[in-house]
């Protein structure tokens, strides 16, 4: 149906794609996987011809016999949305906030002259029903802000399928969603492909997602397709070394020293923590409501122990992290760090704060862009007073995370995402804290970088006797690096136990649901490698 041959792309003289060839067949799912910057999104945008200025495209893109590269911009407009449609990663920004969902789905039909407005609204209703937004709860007159992320992504899908396109391109359609929502959206996409005979090009960084969905897979790296084939065969044989490396990295479990000191008092104790946020008043004299973000949470982290805290977005895990860090007061309950109370309302003494540090998710927002690395990493010294040998200590911390002391004089924008996360870790360990809170610290990283950072974290834990509170929505990562795990839902801990035990035999229904929704590569596909000794 969609056939790409020898597609090459240059943007302002920089080569982006080199001789990409692939086919998407009707009723089939074609998975395109690769790390960030591999050119997978650019391949999709080349098909749509939605390229930035200064782009030069060579090669052929044909769709059901039409040569798309030969069409001019006006003819392309007729193709976009009607014969090839696209779904993007971020459902929160993909919809116009000022227009109703009905209008937005109908717009595709009206723009292409497929139906007059009244008729278009009727079809919009039909399509919203098809994507699982039933009329009784999701009226055409509802606005995007009234919907959750998953529901918005369904609206985007309804818009994309409104004109029954032959090809649907989904660029990381579930990356911004929680695992349970992801499972539902993937199931919806799969049913559209199987039942309506659409061809789906599924672009993702997540190998497990394509393993479960795609009929055929292509692995991209640096603008080239390095390996391509039927999904199961590709996963089993892994002919190209990059495919092997990618698969190994995605299931990487770092070696961790058994440093557990049994019987020692815990580093961190949280007892019955409650955090309320006041809501706005319904009426001028109405009572103020409360939103309980953290609802009676108790936990303990032992010395040298890694504790995972998993849960979906909005479950209160980041609020709990901020409370532990003494940045937000608790309404009820207590937090103790090595026995000393952490109370944000009364102020936390510097010496106590110095025992805990944090690493955030976003390697780009974590640093003041105007400061040099030396100053950024030295920031926690503010708590204990800057020692005379602070530059040596910073250099030492940088070396501990695998960077060079010479990097001290650079600015954060001179580093890649993975390197910045190393700087963030250096900043966290420079004053030798007892506890490091890792708030989605590896979620924004590519799998191969993620494996390196997990390895680094395990290594630092052994060397400095750190305790980790590892907050994540990614169950695979939590399984790889933690000793114990807590499952959080709607502000409460619903299950707690040794990581392996919880993952092997979850007791709570919600944990089972989370595990079932997590996409996984079938284990016998991977086991092949050891038999062949490849």
């Amino acid at each position: 149906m969609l056939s790409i041959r020898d597609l090459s792309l240059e943007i302002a003289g920089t080569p982006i794609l080199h001789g990409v060839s692939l086919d998407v067949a009707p009723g089939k799912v074609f998975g395109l996987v690769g790390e960030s910057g591999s050119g997978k999104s650019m391949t999709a945008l080349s098909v749509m011809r939605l390229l930035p200025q200064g782009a030069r495209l060579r090669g052929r893109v044909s769709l059901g016999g039409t040569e798309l590269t030969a069409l001019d911009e006006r003819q392309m407009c007729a193709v976009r949305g009607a014969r090839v449609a696209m779904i993007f990663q971020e459902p929160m920004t993909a919809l116009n906030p000022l227009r109703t969902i009905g209008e937005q789905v109908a717009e595709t039909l009206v723009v292409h002259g497929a139906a007059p407005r009244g008729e278009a609204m009727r079809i919009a209703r039909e399509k919203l029903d098809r994507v699982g937004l039933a009329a009784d709860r999701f009226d055409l007159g509802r606005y995007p802000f009234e919907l959750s992320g998953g529901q918005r992504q369904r609206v985007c899908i309804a818009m994309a399928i409104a004109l029954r396109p032959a090809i649907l391109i989904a660029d990381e359609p579930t990356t911004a969603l929680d695992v349970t929502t992801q499972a539902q959206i993937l199931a919806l996409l799969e049913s559209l492909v199987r039942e309506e005979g659409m061809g789906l090009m599924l672009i993702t960084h997540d190998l497990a997602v394509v393993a479960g969905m795609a009929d055929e897979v292509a692995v991209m790296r640096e603008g080239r397709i390095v390996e391509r084939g039927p999904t199961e065969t590709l996963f089993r044989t892994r002919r190209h070394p990059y495919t092997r490396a990618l698969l190994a990295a995605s299931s990487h479990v770092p070696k961790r020293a058994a440093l557990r000191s049994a019987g020692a008092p815990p580093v961190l104790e949280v007892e019955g923590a409650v955090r309320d946020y006041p809501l706005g008043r319904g009426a001028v004299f109405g009572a103020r409501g409360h939103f309980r973000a953290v609802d009676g949470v108790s936990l303990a982290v032992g010395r040298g122990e890694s504790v995972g805290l998993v849960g979906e977005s909005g479950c209160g895990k980041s609020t709990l992290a901020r409370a532990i860090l003494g940045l937000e007061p608790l309404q009820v309950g207590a937090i103790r760090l090595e026995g000393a109370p952490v109370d944000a309302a009364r102020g936390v003494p510097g010496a106590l704060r110095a025992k805990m540090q944090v690493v955030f998710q976003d390697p780009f927002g974590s640093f003041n862009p105007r400061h040099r690395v030396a100053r950024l990493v030295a920031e926690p010294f503010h708590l204990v007073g800057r020692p005379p040998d602070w530059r040596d200590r910073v250099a030492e911390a940088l070396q501990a995370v695998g960077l060079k002391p010479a990097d001290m004089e650079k600015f954060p924008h001179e580093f890649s995402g993975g390197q910045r996360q190393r700087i963030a870790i250096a900043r966290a360990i420079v004053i030798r804290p007892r506890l490091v809170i890792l708030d989605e610290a590896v979620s924004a990283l590519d799998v191969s970088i993620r494996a390196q950072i997990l390895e680094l974290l395990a290594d630092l834990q052994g060397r400095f006797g750190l305790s980790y509170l590892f907050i994540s929505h990614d169950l695979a990562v939590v399984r790889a690096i933690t000793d114990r795990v807590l499952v959080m839902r709607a502000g409460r801990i619903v299950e707690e136990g040794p990581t392996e035990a919880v993952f092997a035999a979850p007791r709570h229904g919600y944990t089972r649901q989370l595990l079932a929704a997590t996409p996984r590569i079938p284990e016998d596909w991977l086991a092949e490698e050891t038999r062949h000794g490849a």
Partner: protein
Amino acid sequence: MRRLPVQMTLGAALSAVFVLAALVSFVWTPYGVEGLAIARRMAPPSLAHPLGTDHFGRDILSMLMVGARTSIAVAIVAVGIGMGLGVPLGLLAAANRGGLIDEIVMRGNDLIFAFPSLVIAILITAIAGPSAFNAILAIGIFNTPVFARVARGGALSLWTLDYILAARVAGKGRLRISLEHILPNILNLLIVQGTIQFSLGILAEAGLSYVGLGAQPPTPSWGRMLAESQTMVSLSPHIAIFPGLAIVLMVLGLNLLGDGLRDWTDPRLRRAR
């Protein structure tokens, strides 16, 4: 080095011409601006007087050069007062966002915004007497809420970033975070706003002088030159045209410079071009 946008180069050049003229006027002007020469009054532009002479026979080019000094001095001090008061207030409001102090500062701003600036300027000069100094004071006060809003707006979006959270984890207080992390990162916003307020300051000074509340004679001022010439527009239009043109070109130059600076410092707008 990034390429400078055309409009910014043009704006910078126009502004530079006037600043240069003002600086040169300290040491040299073609003619003195205080001596009257009734014999050659209202002469049209000629080689001896490139822009002609006014109703007292004074050289208009020399008058404009010295007048630029007044305008620029008033605008600099007014922007200085606005920044000096407004930026700390804006940072303070942002550091206490959602709190009582934020509310007080911002409602105080609204209050100043709600008064017509000319009326207040008239009030100040009515009490303290008309002078360039009082004009500066009035313009400066009305610049304050503008800078407070810009500073607060820029600071609010920064306060949500992870590096601010990291600084809080490092035990830094609001004051220190505001000075160390917030202020340097909103500086470009403030510079751009400063340029725009600078041009508005020149316009305001011209307006106040025009109604007789600004610089007093014999200090030359573009606004007063315009006011004095208006009865003679039909006789010798050049007396009114040149000061008017000076005001328009200087304000235009500064606005272009401000717009250009904003585009140049905003990476999103830069890429769109």
